[in-house]
């Protein structure tokens, strides 16, 4: 296992008391595996990976539980050591390539900066590697592109540059937080292709966040569904799409067009709104919106055992 997260809990001190944003999140990622995380906005996907990256900088955040990277505990790790891991062994790609790069430096400068931070190489070598990386992610005429400023590239090219930057030190784990959400549909497909190709050549494990199940179906080996800061279902890709168990996952799948076959007359939406985290219902968090709710849901379900885990009493959750 490259990453083992156990009972991760993240809370924020706010005016309305402690708000728990992640509640008992446990998962692991094997070498070279692609783990997908889906869920509605605010379900805690970003927070989960920020915790792994050690990038929750809010002084009001309280992080509990355990995050082990290659057996090494990251929670409570000294900032120096965490910095040394970040960008070298664990890298991250962000959602919006428009704002993810510092506007006043060239692409090459920003990639070289990361190489020079982690490795003792000459500036020249770092720039050469930046050019090679840009070529690898499919940016045309990379010798010229290194001298470009972020605003001179299109969104898709910028995201490629961001991906090149994430790959600089050949990370063992790559975290991608909705890397295609901000892009045009055609560009989305190209970026997904690129990620798939890079995954094959570099062999990094990837934690991939999206709220687009179609994207998920193309890339993920295993999928984890989150709701209100909790994991509600987790399974390999095929069983999850073929036989979703949790009513929330079923609703999510019904809300997108099917991957194959005829498009249904109309898509279903999930009734109600996601709950406020500061005021979660007792028991199952999805309960108030659940069409199959029954008496047992007043208690909080835990996950069933692998391979197809669900947190729903209908599926025999403990």
């Amino acid at each position, binding site marked *: 296992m490259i990453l083992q997260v156990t009972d991760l809990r993240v809370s924020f001190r706010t005016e309305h008391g402690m708000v728990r944003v992640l509640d008992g999140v446990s998962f692991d990622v094997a070498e070279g595996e692609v783990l997908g995380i889906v869920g509605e906005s605010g379900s805690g996907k970003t927070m989960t990976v920020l915790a792994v990256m050690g990038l929750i900088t809010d002084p009001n955040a309280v992080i509990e539980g355990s995050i082990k990277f290659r057996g090494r505990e990251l929670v409570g790790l000294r*900032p120096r050591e965490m910095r*040394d891991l*970040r*960008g070298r062994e664990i890298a*991250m790609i962000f959602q919006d390539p428009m704002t993810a790069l*510092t*506007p*006043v430096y060239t692409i090459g400068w920003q990639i070289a900066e990361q190489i020079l931070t982690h490795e003792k190489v000459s500036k020249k070598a770092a720039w050469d590697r930046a050019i090679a990386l840009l070529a690898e992610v499919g940016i045309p005429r990379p010798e010229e592109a290194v001298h470009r400023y972020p605003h001179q590239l299109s969104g898709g090219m910028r995201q490629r540059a*961001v991906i090149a930057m994430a790959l600089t030190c050949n990370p063992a784990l790559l975290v991608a937080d909705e890397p295609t959400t901000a892009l045009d549909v055609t560009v989305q497909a190209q970026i997904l292709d690129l990620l798939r190709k890079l995954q094959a050549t570099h062999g990094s494990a990837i934690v991939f966040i999206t709220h687009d199940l179609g994207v998920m179906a193309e890339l993920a080996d295993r999928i984890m569904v989150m709701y209100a800061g909790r994991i509600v279902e987790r399974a390999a890709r095929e069983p999850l799409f073929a036989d979703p168990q949790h009513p929330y996952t079923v609703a999510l799948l019904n809300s997108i067009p099917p991957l194959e076959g005829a498009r249904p007359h109309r898509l279903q939406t999930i009734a109600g709104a996601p709950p406020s985290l500061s005021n979660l219902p007792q028991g199952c968090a999805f309960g108030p919106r659940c069409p199959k709710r029954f008496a047992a849901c007043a208690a909080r379900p835990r996950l069933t055992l692998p391979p197809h885990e669900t947190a729903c009493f209908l599926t025999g959750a403990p």
Partner: protein
Amino acid sequence: MTYAILQRLAQMLFVMFGISLLVFLIFFGTPGVDPAARIAGRNASPEVLEAVRHSFGFDQPFYVQYLTMMKKIFVTGDLTSFVNRGWKVVPAVLDTIPVTLSLVFGAAVLWVVFSLIIGVVAAAFRDRWPDKLLMILGLIGISMPVYWLGEVMNLITQSRFHDIWLFAWVPPLGYKEFGKDPEGWFLTLVIPWITLSILYIGLYGRVLRASITEALQEDYIRTARAKGLSETRILLRHALRTSLIAFVTLFGLDFGALVGGSALLTEVVFGLQGVGKLTFDALQNLDLPVIMTTVLYASFFVVLANAVVDVVYILLDPRVRTS
């Protein structure tokens, strides 16, 4: 580039023309303002007034008066004062320039260096006590009137505590030419520099702290953290670097205005014969040729400072370069 410079020059001429016309109209076209009456003094008889009017050319049409004045400033350079007849205005203004430049340059060095330090340190310790302390000090610096501060400085360093070792080096008020006495130049200006810069140190420190803190919320800072950069590097190379754009704009405007004469109060308190002091004296006795010359000089510097800001902008922000 050449085009941009020519455009600037044209803009500068236009601004200077506009301002000179405006000043001229204010002093001659405003009802109730009669420079002749002012020059002739109180209780002057109508005959005397008429004589004054004629001898100063006030009986000619506006545009003739205006053109004569412009010619005397720019072409012949022999414009004379209305108040001290025979006193050549252009050389007098030129004489004050080194004084004002010395004062403003020195103060600018101080305020840039110290506000950078304050802004960065406060942003690095944001919301903790060093930040709060620095911001309160900055606020105090901003709220102290420069005239009052100058008087207090003089009181301390010239009279009350002049004899203790700490201030014994402070020379008497007045300006010493750099070419003749560099040490004297430096020593006489130290206290005025400090006095003038305190307001700007407070102001710029606070502005910089705010813009760095804002920059630290940006997505690219999160990317920088994800790259594994140190907090110091993130603060200086990413957050500070992008914040400098606002800082430079502010600096150019203030610097231009100060060189153009807004250092007036400091000049008056410390007995420095600078542009501000000259304008101030000329305003007191409505000496239009002097006012006109200093105003033109000031507008020249304000536009020049703006042009310099634009160039620095291009150096600092690649986004401006291409568009």
